[in-house]
């Protein structure tokens, strides 16, 4: 079960990035899975390098977080590229992000090759705990906590901070906020970068527990979509609830009947669409 929550925490980060960008810019970013994959590979390399340079091993989480955040630097130039088609039909925006997916796949292949990358020992460095009969790596709990903290932080940021208010206002009504003196170019650049950061940090955090593979990005995006549909497009709370549902569904399906792992998730997606077409938490906040 905790394995499911662990997966949910990572899934939430990627889905939150997707929601944020969609909520404000109205762009459904297919490339957010690629950010996740890129974060994972970059995280492995950064930690390997840092450990080689004599960093005490328990600090590797900090390096991972730092790697994820540093990688968000690709956000502004990508946003600049997307800016060329903001006034175009959303089908074209979707296609441009698909172009990014194709390109990032080969960027990863170019720098890291096709073999899976792993972070050897780091995963169990914090030891394991026994919780109710099952053994849980402490690292999983660290990531769950980090996911929870980021969720709370995002909630606070959107509801209370000055920039969060601007973001919500923009999501609500683009022209009106622009008329009131909001510099849309800067808001978009920042929101997009934040969305990228959520994806790359998610990818960096997941990597001690699994291996980085070429397909991880395009596989995760499909789950992130499921999360977003279940939760409702553009809703942060929806991303949180949806990630939990998908994470737990997957974990229990794998435990009971592995063949239906993804099928089960889609059954939920489709029933949500039939019963509550706008998702469980339609447009609560940004």
């Amino acid at each position, binding site marked *: 079960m905790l394995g499911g929550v662990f997966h949910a925490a990572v899934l939430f980060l990627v889905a939150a990035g997707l929601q944020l960008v969609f909520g404000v810019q109205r762009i459904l970013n297919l490339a957010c899975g690629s950010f996740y994959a890129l974060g994972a590979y970059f995280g492995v390399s950064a930690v390997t390098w840092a450990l080689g340079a004599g960093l005490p091993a328990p600090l590797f989480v900090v390096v991972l977080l730092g790697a994820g955040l540093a990688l968000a630097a690709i956000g502004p130039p990508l946003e600049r590229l997307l800016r060329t088609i903001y006034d175009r039909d959303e*089908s074209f925006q*979707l296609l441009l992000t698909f*172009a990014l997916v*194709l390109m990032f*796949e080969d960027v990863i292949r170019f720098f890291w090759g096709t073999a899976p990358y792993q972070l050897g020992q780091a995963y169990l460095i914090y030891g394991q705990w026994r919780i109710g009969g099952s053994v849980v790596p402490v690292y999983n709990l660290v990531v769950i906590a980090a996911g929870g903290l980021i969720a709370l932080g995002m909630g606070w940021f959107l509801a209370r901070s000055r920039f969060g208010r601007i973001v919500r206002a923009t999501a609500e009504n683009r022209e009106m906020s622009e008329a009131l003196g909001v510099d849309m170019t800067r808001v978009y650049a920042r929101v997009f970068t934040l969305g990228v950061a959520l994806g790359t940090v998610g990818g960096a955090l997941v990597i001690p527990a699994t291996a980085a593979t070429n397909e991880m990005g395009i596989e995760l995006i499909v789950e992130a979509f499921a999360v977003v*549909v279940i939760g409702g497009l553009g809703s942060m709370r929806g991303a949180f609830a949806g990630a939990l549902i998908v994470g737990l569904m997957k974990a229990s399906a794998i435990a009971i009947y592995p063949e239906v792992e*993804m099928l089960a998730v889609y059954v939920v*997606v489709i029933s949500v669409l039939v019963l509550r077409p706008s998702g469980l938490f339609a447009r609560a906040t940004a």
Partner: protein
Amino acid sequence: MARVIAVLLGVALLAAPLVLPRYQITLLLPSFAYGIALLGLNLLFGTTGLLSFGHALFVALGAYTAAYLTTGFGVRHFELIVVGAALVAVVVAVPVGLLCVRYVKIYFGMLTLAFGMLFYSFLYKFYTVTGGDEGMRVLRPMLLGQPLAGLNKVDFLTGPFYYYALALLALAALVMHRIVRSPFGLCLRAIRENPEKAEALGVSARRHRFGAFLIAAVFGAVGGTLLGVPTGLADPLLAYWTHSGNLVFMLLLGGFDHFLGPVVGAIVFIFLQDLIMSLTSYWRFVFGAILAVLVIFVPRGLLGLLDARTRASA
């Protein structure tokens, strides 16, 4: 203009086996298959204004129908396979379409993507039914009742099968032409331009979109049956969402607001892919860059470019 292109293209493709080396002819086969599938996809995107990111579902459905009929039931008549695939496509597209056409724009795209991946995970996970990641074999079919067993594989593919596929493509194009020009096609275009106005005039947007979805599904599956024959294989990656993305890419390459855009896009895509793959192993990067340039600068595709030329010179 459109008629000129159609005639030139038809003559060129008819003469191709006499002129081109056999390798290029085998490359044309998948582009005919994709051409048929894209004609259907374009009825959704170009005519109705719905972007499907799950069209690969129906292509895969067609390929697997061919695999099932040839290996499982010993049905070798390709005409029966095509009809069978069309029927299967309708059976699947009715429930899927009923759900999907309740949505438009981005939601439609996401939902079709979800259904495509649902089918993919079915193909991938249920090993005993579908062969899992190994896929299923597609045996050589009989064309018009002729067993053609005396020919070796390349002779079969570049000879009878080439012309058979070309004829099927031509037939599909004619049928689609009629559909687009029919009152039904006009209604679809009206819905694309202004759904509220179309509704006010008594055109049910949902029912027409559903009709377009069914037709697109049938074209997708018929294209899929052709796709399985040259490779002799139906594999689950045919249903993967990136394959759907590539289909949209081809459509955009050819030009979605041009009737022959889908066919031209499929041919150019396949040859371009072959060329770039022979030059670099990082062909996805090059293709991504090409797609980005297309989306930003040439959204109406190659034929759109041609139109602009002739209009400027006229």
